[in-house]
C-alpha cells in the first residue's frame, strides 16, 4: 500500500485547491446529514416527551365485562341480560398484588392506583361534566407533572379538597377557595342515592398542563374520597404505570395483560397519530440523509473521473513499467477514501458546532430552545462512516476506468 498511499496523497496535495474544495463538498453533505439527524431526533424526542410526560405509559383496567347471553334463540339472535355500559362500575379488587407484581417488573418506574369515574361539578346554577381522578397525595406528580403545572393555589389533595384544570375553572367561574359540588354520575352510589354520591369540595389548586382535554375536564381528589364518591368499597378502577423507556411500553403492557387478565393498554394505542407522524418524519429525514450521501458520491466520482483523465499519461507510463491494474485501482479508491475521511471528520465537527450554535441562538428566556434541535443526536459516527464508505464506493468507477487505460494509447497520445 506504500505506493498507493504515496501516489494518492501526492495527487491530492499537488491539486490541493481541488482537493480542499472537494473535501469541503463532502463536509457540507455531512453537515446536512448530522443537522437533519439532530433536528429530527430532537423533534421526535420533544414530541414524544410532550405526550408521554403527561400521560400514563401503561394503563391496566378491568376487562370490559361482556354482557351475558341470556338465551340463544333458534334464529341465532341473542338476548342481553344487561345492556352494555350500564353495569356497575368495574373494579380491580386484587390491586395490591397487581401493584406489587408490576412494580417488580424490569423497566417499570412507578405504579399508581386510581379510582376513576365520571361526575358533574356544580357551582350555583352552572354544572359541568368532569372526569374525576382519585389519587393518593404521594402519587399526584407521578403520571403528570401536576405540581409544576399549578397556576393558582397549590396541589392539596386532603380530604375535601379538589384540584381542577384552568379551562374548567374559567368555564365554571371558580377560583381557589371556592366551594363546589361534586356529584357522581352513573354509579351504583348515585342510583341508590347513598350518602357518598355527592360531596362539597373546596378548590385548592388550579393547573394548566397544556393538554386541552385534561385542562378542561379533569379534576383531582384524594383516593379515599373518590372511593366514597363512586361507592367503591375496596379496590381501584385502574392502575397506571410509568416506565423507563416509553418505547418499551407496548411490550410491558402485553406482558402485564397476560399476567393479570386485566385489559392493558399503552400510551401509543391512544396516540396513533404521533406514531404515524414520527414514522413520516423518520422517512423524510432518511430521504434527506440519502440525498446528502448521494451528493457526496456524485461529487467524489466526478472529481476523480476528472483526475483520471488528467493523469492518463502517468497511468500509462506506470503500467508500462509493470505497475499492476490493482495498484492503480487502489490508488484512486484511496484518494476517494482520503477525501471522504477528511471531509467527513471536518463535516462532523462543523455539524456539531452548527447544531450547538443553532440551539443557543434559538434559546428563549425560559431556557427552552424554540428549535428542538439536539446536538447530541447528530448520528456523527454513522455520518462519518457512511460518508467514508460512499466516497470509497464512488471512487470505484473512476478507479476502474483508470485501470482500463491502455498504456500504449496513453503514452502515444
Amino acid at each position, binding site marked *: *500500500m*506504500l*505506493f498507493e498511499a504515496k501516489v494518492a496523497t*501526492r*495527487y491530492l496535495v*499537488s491539486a490541493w485547491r481541488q482537493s480542499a474544495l472537494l473535501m469541503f463538498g463532502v463536509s457540507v453533505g455531512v453537515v446536512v446529514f448530522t443537522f437533519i439527524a439532530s433536528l429530527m431526533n430532537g423533534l421526535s424526542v420533544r414530541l414524544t416527551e410532550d405526550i408521554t410526560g403527561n400521560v400514563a405509559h401503561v394503563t391496566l383496567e378491568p376487562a370490559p365485562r361482556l354482557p351475558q347471553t341470556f338465551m340463544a334463540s333458534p334464529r341465532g339472535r341473542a338476548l342481553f341480560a344487561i345492556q352494555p355500559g350500564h353495569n356497575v362500575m368495574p373494579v380491580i379488587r386484587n390491586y395490591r398484588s397487581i401493584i406489587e407484581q408490576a412494580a417488580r417488573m424490569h423497566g417499570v418506574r412507578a405504579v399508581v392506583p386510581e379510582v376513576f369515574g365520571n361526575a358533574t361539578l356544580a357551582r350555583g346554577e352552572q354544572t359541568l361534566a368532569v372526569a374525576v381522578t382519585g389519587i393518593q397525595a404521594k402519587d399526584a406528580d407521578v403520571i403528570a407533572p401536576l405540581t409544576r403545572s399549578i397556576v393558582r393555589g397549590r396541589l392539596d389533595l386532603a380530604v375535601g379538597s379538589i384540584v381542577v384544570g384552568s379551562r374548567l375553572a374559567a368555564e365554571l367561574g371558580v377560583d381557589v377557595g371556592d366551594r363546589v359540588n361534586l356529584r357522581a354520575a352513573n354509579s351504583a352510589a348515585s342510583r341508590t342515592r347513598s350518602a357518598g354520591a355527592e360531596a362539597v369540595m373546596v378548590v385548592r389548586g388550579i393547573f394548566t398542563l397544556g393538554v386541552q382535554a385534561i385542562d378542561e375536564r379533569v379534576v383531582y381528589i384524594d383516593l379515599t374520597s373518590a372511593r366514597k364518591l363512586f361507592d367503591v368499597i375496596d379496590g381501584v378502577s385502574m392502575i397506571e404505570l410509568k416506565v423507563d423507556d416509553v418505547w418499551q411500553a407496548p411490550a410491558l403492557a402485553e406482558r402485564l395483560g397476560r399476567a393479570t387478565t386485566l385489559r392493558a393498554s399503552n400510551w401509543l394505542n391512544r396516540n396513533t397519530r404521533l406514531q404515524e407522524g414520527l414514522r413520516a418524519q423518520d422517512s423524510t429525514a432518511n430521504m434527506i440523509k440519502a440525498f446528502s450521501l448521494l451528493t457526496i458520491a456524485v461529487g467524489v466520482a466526478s472529481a476523480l473521473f476528472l483526475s483520471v483523465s488528467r493523469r492518463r*499519461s*502517468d497511468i*500509462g*507510463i*506506470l*503500467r*508500462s*513499467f*509493470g*505497475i*499492476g*491494474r490493482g*495498484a492503480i485501482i487502489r490508488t484512486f479508491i484511496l484518494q476517494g477514501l482520503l477525501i471522504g475521511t477528511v471531509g467527513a471528520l471536518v463535516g462532523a465537527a462543523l455539524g456539531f458546532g452548527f447544531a450547538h450554535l443553532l440551539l443557543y441562538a434559538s434559546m428563549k428566556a425560559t431556557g427552552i430552545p424554540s428549535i428542538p434541535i439536539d446536538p447530541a443526536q447528530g448520528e456523527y459516527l454513522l455520518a462519518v462512516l457512511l460518508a467514508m464508505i460512499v466516497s470509497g464506493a464512488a471512487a470505484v468507477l473512476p478507479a476502474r476506468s483508470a485501470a482500463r487505460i491502455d*498504456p*500504449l494509447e496513453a*503514452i*502515444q497520445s
Partner: protein
Amino acid sequence: MTQLTTVVLEAKDIVKTFGEGEAATHVLRGVSTEIRSGEFVALVGPSGSGKSTFLSIAGTLLTPSTGSLAIAGESVLGRNEKEIAEVRNRHLGFVFQFHHLLEDFTAFENVLMPVYGAQARVSAPFVARARRLLQRVGLKDRMEFPTSKLSGGQKQRVAVARALIMKPEIVLADEPTGNLDRKSSDEVLHLLRELAHDEGTAFFVSTHDESIAMRCDRILTMEDGMLSSTKPSLS
C-alpha cells in the same frame, strides 16, 4: 565487447495487421531480429514504416497478430497480463519521444517509481542506485527538483535513469531525441551510448537521426513493414 553471447530479445516472424478485410493495414509483414546483451542497435526507416509498432510489440505493450517473442530467453506470448507486467518490470526499460515523467513527483521519486512494481517498499540498494544513475546522467543537483522545473533535455535524462533503475536487459527507446534540440539531443545520445557500455544493457533505439546510426553497433532498417537490411555502421 567480449560477451555478446546472450540473446536478450528475440522476435520471429512478427506480423501486425490493424483492422480487418478491406480496411486492414498490414504494418508489420514478418519481422525477425535478435538483440544481444549490451548491444546498441538503431532502428531507422521512413515515418509510418512501422518502427513504433515494432518497438511496442518488442516491449509487450502491443500483441502481434502472429509471430513469437522471447525476452531474456522467456517466451512472452500467451502469458497472462500479470506475468507480462512482471517481464516488463524486470527485463525491460522504456524511453519515449515524450519523457512521460510524473509531474507531481521529484526527479528522484520518478526514477524510483518502477521499483514499486517489484517491491512494496523501496529497498536501500535501489535508493543508492537511483542516486548513482541521476548523478551519472548529470542531474546530481536536481534530484529533489520538482520535475516541472527541469528543462526538456534534463527531463529526458531523468526518463533514461528511470528506464535503467531495475537493471533491465534491454531498453527500448522510440525516438528518444525527437523532441529535443540539437545540443540536448547529442547529450542524451552520448549518454545512452555510454550507459549501454557501462551497464551492459542493450539499447534498441528508433530514430530519424543519422548521428545515432553512426554511433551504434548495428542498424536495422524498417521499410514497408519489413526489416529489409541489416548493415553494420562505421563507428
